[in-house]
């Protein structure tokens, strides 16, 4: 069946997409193309309700609704993978940010500590 081939290829593509190192610009472009295609298909299937079933039959699926379900499963997989990856990147950014805060605080502490040790305390220093 054609649909089985399409679905298996789709799932594998998502899997590869998932493990590949990110090139975020091309990812963004792909996401936008995907969304654009989705909009066109949605409009088509609203205007010509029989079109979806015709297309489904063409690739070996009984009903248009079934095809819709399969497409949704794939779309969900893509969503999970992109969300996961974005999450990882956001976390890395947070880590770098938090690390800078930590190191800056430590640097300030060190400067203060060396000030305290090189300079006698103000009370004994004064009159």
């Amino acid at each position, binding site marked *: 069946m054609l649909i089985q081939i399409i679905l298996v290829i789709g799932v594998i593509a998502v899997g590869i997409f998932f*493990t590949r190192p990110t090139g975020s610009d091309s990812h963004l472009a792909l996401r936008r193309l995907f969304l654009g295609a989705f909009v066109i298909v949605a409009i088509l299937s609203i205007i010509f309700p029989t079109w979806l079933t015709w297309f489904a039959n063409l690739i070996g699926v009984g009903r248009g609704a079934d095809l819709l379900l399969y497409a949704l499963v794939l779309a969900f997989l893509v969503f999970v993978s992109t969300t996961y990856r974005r999450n990882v990147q956001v976390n890395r950014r947070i880590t770098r940010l938090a690390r800078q805060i930590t190191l800056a605080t*430590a640097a300030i502490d060190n400067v203060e500590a060396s000030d305290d040790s090189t300079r006698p305390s103000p009370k004994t220093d004064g009159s």
Partner: protein
Amino acid sequence: MTPPEPRANSRVGTGDTWVVIPLFNEKSVIETVIHDLHQEFTKIVCIDDGSSDGSGDVARRAGAKVLRHPVNLGQGASLQTGFEYVLTQPNARYVVTFDADGQHRVEDAVSMVALARSEDLAIVFGSRFLDKRTRPGVLKRIILKTAVWVTNMTTGLRLTDAHNGLRVIRTDALSKIALVQDRMAHATEIVLKLGRTKLPWREYPVELLYTDYSKAKGQSVLNSINILVDLIVR
């Protein structure tokens, strides 16, 4: 409180060696760990990874330099913070990574630094599988050996132990790596990135003290799945 006075400069851990300890909720043991380390090492930095039990204050009172993450980031992130801190310190030459839960022996750390100095090594990995002193349980052994296998597959190095927190790294190697794995997968990542530096490395047999405490805090079987996924999905 100030750290105990250095004994003599015959110690290997003086001056240019920093001990880096990632610290997360280890209040009950961290004081002993730091105290024991102070017998040999003067410069100890703990990275308090957003502990909620006041571990950082305990470590500070015990005489360690404490850096505090504002939020919990994970052990890998803590190590990287420690590394970056040490790299800003003048005269720093060696870093010893040491676990906060007291499962490493200070003697092993000392010998490893001495080995790095005498053999001019950039990296010394501690390994619990080079001799028979350490006896992990069967399940733990299977998990660790699997981790070793995965590490060797991905890094091209031939190690006998993967997730051992005791390592000695020279600063020239340190400055060439940046850990981005925040959680436990950093143990494999650090081997991978240190391996890529092509600097001389060696393994050194160490003993791990499996106390009830460290057993209770040890990694679960399920966590090894997390490590695997973290490494595959980039």
